[in-house]
């Protein structure tokens, strides 16, 4: 694969027709099979969009997921789903409650991975919500130990990763937005993520965002994955200077799109951000991505941002003679 590959973190906004279909399902006016049709259409629409603008590593857009933690919890024994809890601004999620031993009922995301991969010749990422985040974003009424919960999730997510690999996933991403939550639990994250990725042949990526990177920086090179996908633009690319002094021994997927701003970045802004990253990272070690999932933006904003990201990347590649 060539340098400066473009990709996305995972989620895209749901188009109006899918939002309406989900509302109908909530009211009992549309069954699961009917909803699935709309979810498939939205997935194919997003894959087609990514193909059109030339994204190198597409994602399925998580059109079938309500929330990244709730989705996995709903498909695991030992959990119930609580009412809505606020995350920030006007964003809420249904927080899982752990009420018994955690066990996978069966494959969780494999069917959707197969569906998405069948729609494109490019490698689609397999997407897992990481064991630490699943633990941290759940209420535990059963285990009474954060480590036990994280490792129980790690075990079942490893099985899921194996099944994704068997289904053809060449790239598996573990989302750990909770990574920077507690300094004293960083060793637990290394251990739990390590149990998920152990023995995988697929390229492994860990995504995190919106934490105090200064506190967790020392652990970046210890995370048992091939690539880190980091929110960088929301924090003004401050992290690049630290990477200059203390090099990352892995690939970096650099967030060049602020997903919490309605403002669509220009191609020029993206070019500047990539040029700054190229001052620190070799192009073959650098991927280009938004800061985080784009589901909080409108479809138009998300598409505008992705277009700017790809156009900016292609311009930089031309400037540097990168094929």
């Amino acid at each position: 694969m060539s340098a400066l590959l473009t990709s996305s973190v995972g989620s895209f906004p749901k188009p109006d027709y899918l939002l309406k279909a989900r509302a109908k399902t909530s009211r009992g006016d549309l069954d699961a099979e009917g909803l699935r049709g709309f979810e498939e259409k939205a997935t194919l629409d997003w894959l087609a969009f990514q193909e059109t603008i030339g994204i190198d590593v597409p994602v399925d857009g998580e059109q079938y997921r309500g929330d990244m933690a709730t989705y996995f919890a709903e498909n695991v024994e030992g959990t119930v789903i609580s009412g809505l809890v606020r995350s920030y601004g006007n964003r809420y999620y249904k927080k899982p409650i752990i009420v018994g031993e955690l066990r996978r009922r069966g494959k969780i995301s494999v069917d959707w991975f197969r569906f998405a991969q069948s729609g494109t010749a490019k490698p689609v990422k397999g997407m897992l919500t990481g064991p630490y985040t699943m633990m941290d974003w759940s209420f535990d009424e059963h285990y009474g130990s954060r480590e036990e919960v994280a490792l129980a999730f790690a075990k079942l997510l490893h099985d899921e990763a194996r099944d994704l690999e068997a289904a053809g996933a060449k790239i598996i991403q573990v989302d750990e937005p909770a990574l920077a939550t507690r300094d004293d639990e960083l060793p637990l994250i290394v251990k739990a993520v390590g149990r998920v990725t152990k023995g995988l042949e697929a390229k492994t990526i860990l995504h995190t965002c919106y934490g105090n990177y200064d506190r967790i920086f020392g652990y970046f090179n210890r995370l048992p994955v091939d690539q880190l996908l980091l929110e960088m633009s929301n924090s003004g690319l401050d992290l690049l200077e630290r990477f200059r002094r203390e090099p990352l021994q892995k690939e970096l997927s650099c967030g060049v799109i602020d997903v919490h701003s309605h403002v669509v970045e220009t191609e020029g802004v993206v070019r500047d951000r990539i040029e700054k990253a190229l001052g620190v990272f070799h192009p073959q070690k650098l991927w280009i991505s938004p800061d985080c999932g784009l589901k909080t933006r409108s479809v138009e904003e998300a598409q505008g941002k992705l277009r700017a990201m790809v156009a900016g990347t292609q311009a930089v590649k031309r400037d540097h003679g990168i094929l």
Partner: protein
Amino acid sequence: MVLTTVVGHYPRIGDSHEEQKLRRTIARLDKGEVTEADLKEVEREVIRDVLREQTQSGIDVVTDGQITWYDSQSHIVRGFRGVQVDGLVRYFDTNTYYRQPVVKAAVEWNGPILADEWRFAQDNSSVPVKAVVTGPATLAALAKDEHYGTRRALAAAFAEALVPEVEALARRGAAQIQIDEPILARDPAELETVRETLGPLAAAKGRAELTLFTYFGDVAKIYPAVLALPADVIGLDLVEGAKTWDRIAKEGSDKPLVLGLVDARNTRSEDPSALAAQIRKLRGRVDLEHSYVSPSNGLEFLPRAKAREKLAILAKTAKLVEGGS
């Protein structure tokens, strides 16, 4: 025998269609379908709702649920000159995020931030409404400083800017003002900064009762020093800060306490009988007549229905303390 109170924020939406009106209105505002005035009206409806929920549950001293606050940091600093509000940063070890204040120049109070909100809540409540202010040490710890150079100097500047805010609250009639300093439970080294910055606020409170509340951890190692801080009442998280309990039980307190015994970060329901028995053990060591039982911190980390359950647990606990032998 013991009073009941809450700490600060409260779930602003619930699971029913009616309870989601604020979320819908904000989404419609984003699309340009409603105005800021429409949003303000809905916020006020929700404030009335959460005041009613607390009062009907039997809570003696309530809050407005911080329904209009985006978060505990940016809501305050938006009322200051010299501070910009920047990107999202995780709030302690919670799965919530705040917009980080960036201090660009000398911090100055720009006019009342909370006084009108507090007055509205008190006018719509049959019981006392506590005004809650994020403390200067925590504001300084969670901000990005590009002007003062040291965190202590920044905290002092925030304190100076909060003095007129506390005065404004007292002037509008707030009889109870709470300063939140969660940073103290996370970092005991902040004790001196809290002491230095609480002093000016205590001097500005007039006749109001001033509570210092710290949460997200224990203060066991600095318990006597915390009691000596210039506040009338000390609020303590006794769930994540369970280690503090032993010191209270052993040494008591010469000031009324807010006993944060109900877990505001887990859905598991406490047994009011067990809590009441625990509180009764403080008889003779703590002035329970003027002390409170409360959640360990704000209730917004829970779903609304669970928050209501926790309020009911508080009220039942207080009754059992009163009725117990």
